[in-house]
């Protein structure tokens, strides 16, 4: 699958603070790419760099196979819809008037505007002042502004921020639909649950560094689940010097691969410790995620 966005060694430093550190990003075409990380992990800064709003300190960015430069940016922007940090919208104007401004900026037709409003189901509220919109309506207007140009790539920074569960589900369905139409969607969030249900590919950022990039299944494989050994005599097992935590009905051991597991089982058997069952503990995606990010503030 060809990549719509590729970065190599992308780095952004603010004075002494490195917000994004040597990021190698690869967003494949036609997928929903979930860009996850705790608040302050560098997601927005990365997205701003991808849009040319912030200059990288080091590294390269390619969008649609073309290096991102001030010259190429002008050519590329009409194909990229985006919403960064907060949903845009002039509060003293109506939704329709805001869309008219976007249309005038980008030379769009009224048909494109109407279709974008219909896609986000905002047509019936388009004549209300934006300052009277709910947060969900503002987010939807922001997405409509991004969609109006018929983009091939959509970059959305926390589009479900502050929405209620119904609003989150609505945006999620919309993004999956858009990806189904061939639009590549890169969406960031600090909430795993929001992204998990729609993303085909995940990129996880922690303290400015990419700690994982791949599919959901890849992510599970990336983390070794704890080993649970059921035994009626955990004290005897611990007496052998095995680093483990006693739990009800046995012991729990972290970070053991297949060979280490075999060795532990062999030692227990040689010592005559009764073993009723040896199994890996089922992990939720959230557990894997927490392990990767070191519980750095993710929900």
């Amino acid at each position: 699958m060809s990549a719509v966005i590729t970065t190599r060694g992308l780095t952004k430093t603010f004075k002494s603070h490195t917000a994004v550190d040597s990021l190698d990003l690869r967003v494949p075409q036609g997928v929903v790419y979930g860009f996850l990380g705790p608040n302050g992990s560098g997601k927005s800064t990365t997205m701003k760099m991808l849009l040319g709003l912030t200059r990288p300190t080091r590294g390269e960015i390619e969008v649609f196979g073309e290096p991102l430069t001030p010259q190429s940016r002008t050519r590329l922007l009409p194909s990229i819809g985006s919403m960064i940090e907060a949903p845009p919208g002039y509060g003293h104007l109506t939704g329709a008037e805001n869309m008219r401004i976007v249309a005038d900026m980008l030379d769009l037709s009224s048909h494109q505007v109407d279709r974008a409003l219909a896609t986000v189901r905002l047509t019936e509220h388009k004549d209300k002042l934006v300052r009277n919109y709910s947060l969900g309506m503002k987010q939807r207007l922001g997405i409509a502004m991004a969609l109006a140009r018929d983009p091939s790539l959509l970059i959305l920074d926390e589009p479900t921020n502050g929405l209620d569960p119904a609003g989150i589900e609505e945006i999620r369905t919309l993004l999956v639909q858009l990806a189904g139409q061939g639009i590549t969607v890169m969406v960031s969030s600090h909430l795993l649950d929001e992204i998990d249900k729609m993303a085909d590919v995940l990129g996880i950022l922690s303290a400015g560094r990419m700690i994982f990039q791949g599919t959901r299944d890849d992510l599970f494989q990336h983390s070794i689940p704890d080993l649970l050994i059921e035994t009626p005599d955990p004290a005897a097992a611990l007496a052998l010097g095995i680093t483990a935590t006693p739990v009800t009905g046995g012991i729990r051991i972290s970070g053991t691969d297949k060979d280490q597991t075999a060795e532990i089982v062999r030692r227990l058997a040689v010592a005559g410790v009764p073993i009723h069952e040896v199994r890996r503990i089922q992990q939720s995606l959230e557990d894997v995620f927490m392990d990767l990010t070191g519980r750095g503030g993710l929900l």
Partner: protein
Amino acid sequence: MRRAVLLEFRKMRRLRTLPIVLVMVVAVAALSSASLFAGSTQTTFEDPAAHPWAGLLLSYTLMAAMTSPILAAVLASRQTDIEHAGTGWTLASIAGFTPGTLCRAKLAALSGILLAAVLIQTLLVVGAGMLAGIRVPLDAGPWIGYTLLLFLVDVALVALHIWLAATVENQLISVGVGMLGAFLAVFTLLAPGAAFWIAPWGAYALISHVAQTAGEVGYVTPPYPWIIGLLALVGITFTLATRRFNRLER
């Protein structure tokens, strides 16, 4: 750039820009002409040596100096604050309009409104003079010269206030500076020696085409080189500042 300017006019909808300008124009014209209806003034209307038009221009100069800095601050602040509140800087950037372009477009749009406002204001004051009964022919030169320079100084002030409003998100600062500016502008009219040192508000005193010496009002030639220098300085500063905005990362 033309497109950016037209967009600024679209954004003015419901910002009450035109009603605010209209109120200020009528207020300045009314306050400037208030003295016309005093009995002592009316005795000079048919005496060319008393320079009744110069007296009216002096009154207009004082009122314009008192109100123009506030009008400039309010207009610039309202037109710029919407970009902070509506994430307009980012919206424009991702459509290919840099923050600097946005600021220059705001200046161009507001300048168009100010041109109309200053012209109407001057015509209202002159009209009030004629209505009140000044029979001496109008000294067109000083009135045209002052109107033109008042417009240019207003544009310079709006440019500085757009820069300030774009730099500092709290618009109370911009409007507060405008109010302080109004005080300084009037002060420099009363103490002309200070005008050069209290730029840019001192410019409202520099452009005055009339002065009062020993109780007599008469026409004077403004210090054009200083005025042109000051306007050029503001122009260069605004150009450089708006270019710098393009490099700022918000």
